[in-house]
């Protein structure tokens, strides 16, 4: 079997379970909210239009943005009320997806009730049914096919959109898609897509069975469909119910690129060897990752000193590496209770890089040289770079202005450079592709870009656990830049690719 397919399939069960639980819960909540709202609104023209309009408005917000918005919203809610709702993972994903599923359920629910024959309603009143009896004996049974069609639509949408829950730290089939996209592992991406599509088709098929059963008034069909749905949800629920008895696992976070997957994998391995049960939260945005750690939603991840310095502390100056790390250690501990365990030994700095031949032809060796010709050149950056303080710092220090600047995910960013659609990239110094593609990183004589030592951060909870710190201590100072580059390139190269877990194992085998 293809190794990346084998690795994707091995990762599948917990992701599928998370996906089923999340989308199942979201659909149930949407039904529990949507049907009463539909009942309430069906007979009230003044409520109906604004309500359906509002649900429609939610629908027009891109699902990814809706998910992302609930993270800061929950953090603010926690801060305002002193509650401690988890702002990352299941809860924000659940709220966003429930809202997303509301529209078809609400709209079909209202249509079902309004489409009933008025004579039947008059008869129901005439024979002396109470409001409740009319609802359960007449309106719901007769409206059921249309109501169920709405639930089917919601189910298919929700299962598809749940892949995006990965971005707020909730494991889902999206993990395979996002990590596969980052490491150019298309088999992994396809496995994630296929699993999500299959799940949606199965859910749709089972609901169709119930719908047909209701339309034909066939109890066996209804019970078969409903029974299988309940069975599926129960199967997803059971293993996690067993696991929860063992206490909360250590949650290892990772941002959305290969190096982070490899290091998170290495950290998980070390903690596993020390007897800890671990969970992964992959593909976290830069800003989300640190806040998630401070809030205790994740327990350990790797970040970079320059990022923490500018983004978390909001500093503009660029002190020497050691001074920066000392100051960070002190401030993060005092402010958030976060422990900076130590530096891994390599730097993953933002650097501006060009193809060697192109740089030579234009006579560029430093960013200062680049600034002279930049107005004729195109910059390809990762998705964050242009919005980061580092870019503003380097741009203002050198008066840097490009003819065009485009954002890509890191994989496609290098492609843009090799196929000639960009001249300069915002590279990462530890990226294996810098050497592999024969790129030159431009010198920064004005020291506008801060230092980016990779450091292990521990949440307030993990900071109190001496055994945990001891398990990770062997990594500190033991990963030089060349080795990290090589590990990164194992995952990022086009042929003979390794999975992040394999690269992590290679990295650890070089430490022991």
């Amino acid at each position, binding site marked *: 079997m293809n190794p990346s397919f084998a690795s994707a399939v091995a990762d599948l069960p917990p992701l599928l379970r998370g996906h089923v639980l999340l989308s199942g819960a979201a659909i149930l909540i949407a039904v529990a909210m949507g049907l009463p709202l539909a009942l309430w609104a069906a007979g009230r023209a003044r409520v109906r239009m604004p309500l359906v309009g509002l649900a429609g408005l939610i629908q027009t917000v891109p699902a990814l943005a809706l998910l992302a918005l609930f993270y800061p919203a929950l953090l603010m809610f926690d801060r305002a009320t002193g509650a401690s709702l988890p702002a990352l993972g299941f809860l924000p994903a659940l709220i966003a997806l429930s809202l997303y599923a509301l529209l078809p359920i609400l709209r079909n629910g209202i249509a079902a009730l309004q489409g009933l024959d008025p004579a039947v309603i008059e008869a129901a009143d005439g024979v002396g*049914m109470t409001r409740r009896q009319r609802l359960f004996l007449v309106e719901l049974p007769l409206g059921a096919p249309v109501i169920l069609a709405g639930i089917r639509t919601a189910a298919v949408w929700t299962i598809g959109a749940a892949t995006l829950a990965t971005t707020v730290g909730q494991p889902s089939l999206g993990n395979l898609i996002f990590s596969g996209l980052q490491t150019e592992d298309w088999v992994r991406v396809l496995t994630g897509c296929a699993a999500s599509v299959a799940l949606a088709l199965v859910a749709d098929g089972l609901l169709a069975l119930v719908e047909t059963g209701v339309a034909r008034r066939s109890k066996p069909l209804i019970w078969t469909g409903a029974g299988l749905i309940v069975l599926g949800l129960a199967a997803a629920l059971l293993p996690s119910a067993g696991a929860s008895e063992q206490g909360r696992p250590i949650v290892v976070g990772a941002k959305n690129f290969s190096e982070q997957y490899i290091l998170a994998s290495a950290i998980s391995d070390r903690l596993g060897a020390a007897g800890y049960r671990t969970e992964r939260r992959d593909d976290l945005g830069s800003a989300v990752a640190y806040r998630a750690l401070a809030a205790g939603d994740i327990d350990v991840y790797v970040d970079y000193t320059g990022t923490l310095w500018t983004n978390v502390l909001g500093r503009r100056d660029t002190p020497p590496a050691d001074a920066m790390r000392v100051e960070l250690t002190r401030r993060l501990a005092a402010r958030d209770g976060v422990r900076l365990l130590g530096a891994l030994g390599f730097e993953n700095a933002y650097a501006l890089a060009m193809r060697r031949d192109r740089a030579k032809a234009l006579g560029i060796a430093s960013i200062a040289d680049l600034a002279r010709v930049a107005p004729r050149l195109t910059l390809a950056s990762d998705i964050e770079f242009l919005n980061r303080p580092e870019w503003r710092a380097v741009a203002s220090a050198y008066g840097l202005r490009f003819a065009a600047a485009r954002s890509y995910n890191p994989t496609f960013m290098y492609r843009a450079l090799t196929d000639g659609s960009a001249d300069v990239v915002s590279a990462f110094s530890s990226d294996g592709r810098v050497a592999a593609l024969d790129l030159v990183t431009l010198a920064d004589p004005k020291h506008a870009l801060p230092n980016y030592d990779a450091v292990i951060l521990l949440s307030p909870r993990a900071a109190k656990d001496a055994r945990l710190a001891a398990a990770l201590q062997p990594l500190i100072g033991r990963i030089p830049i060349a080795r990290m580059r090589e590990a990164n390139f194992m995952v990022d190269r086009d042929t003979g690719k390794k999975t992040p877990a394999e690269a992590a194992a290679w990295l650890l085998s070089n430490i022991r």
Partner: protein
Amino acid sequence: MDDPDFLRLDGVGKRRGGRLVLDGVSLSVPAGAFVALVGPSGSGKTTLLKTINRLVEPDTGTIRLDGKDVRATPAPALRRRIGYAFQGIGLFPHMNVAENIGIVPSLSGAPAAERAARVAELLDLVALGPDFAARAPRTLSGGQAQRVGLARALAARPSLMLMDEPFGALDPLTRDELGRAYRALHDRLGLTTIMVTHDMTEALLLADRIVVLIDGRIRADAAPAALLAGHGDEAVRALVAVPRLQAERIAALGARP
């Protein structure tokens, strides 16, 4: 049976969208009477009928059934004691004929065996065979469906039947046949019936007493014979004249050589 005030309406008024639909209607119906409520479209006859089982709540006035204000009983409980049949019939499409007929006993919590016996009895009463019990409403003809509608209305052994154009959508033959059949049931079961119709012929032939409603007011209240003899004002006489003139023209057609 002989209660002269079995059903009594006093000053019943209803305003809808600024228009006075019912303008202080008072009416007393003795037990066992068959009253036809007639009038042109928009005269308020359906609204008046529906105030009796509280499908419409009047703005003013009181309605007493058996001496008791209908508002003293919760609407669903009141309606279960009053038979209601209307032009739309409104059989429940997801229930078979037996379930439709047995709905009121089932709402009141009657045991299944008692319900089944009652359904058989009612099918017989409306002249439908026992094989109809398991049929779905959509398989019935219009006349059969209204027979089931009548059986459903009679299921709880009501003493009062309210009927709103019950035979209005049927073909003339079925309509005549069902009208007679119902009149026979009315007499046999000792019912009190209020039937709304815009068909004066039907009213004259079926009812003991005809109440003419025009613009929300009672303009005539008399036995069919008295109306035919010219009772009432000009508008009432014009309504009664239609069937009589039609009958004379038909008779004249037959008399021609």
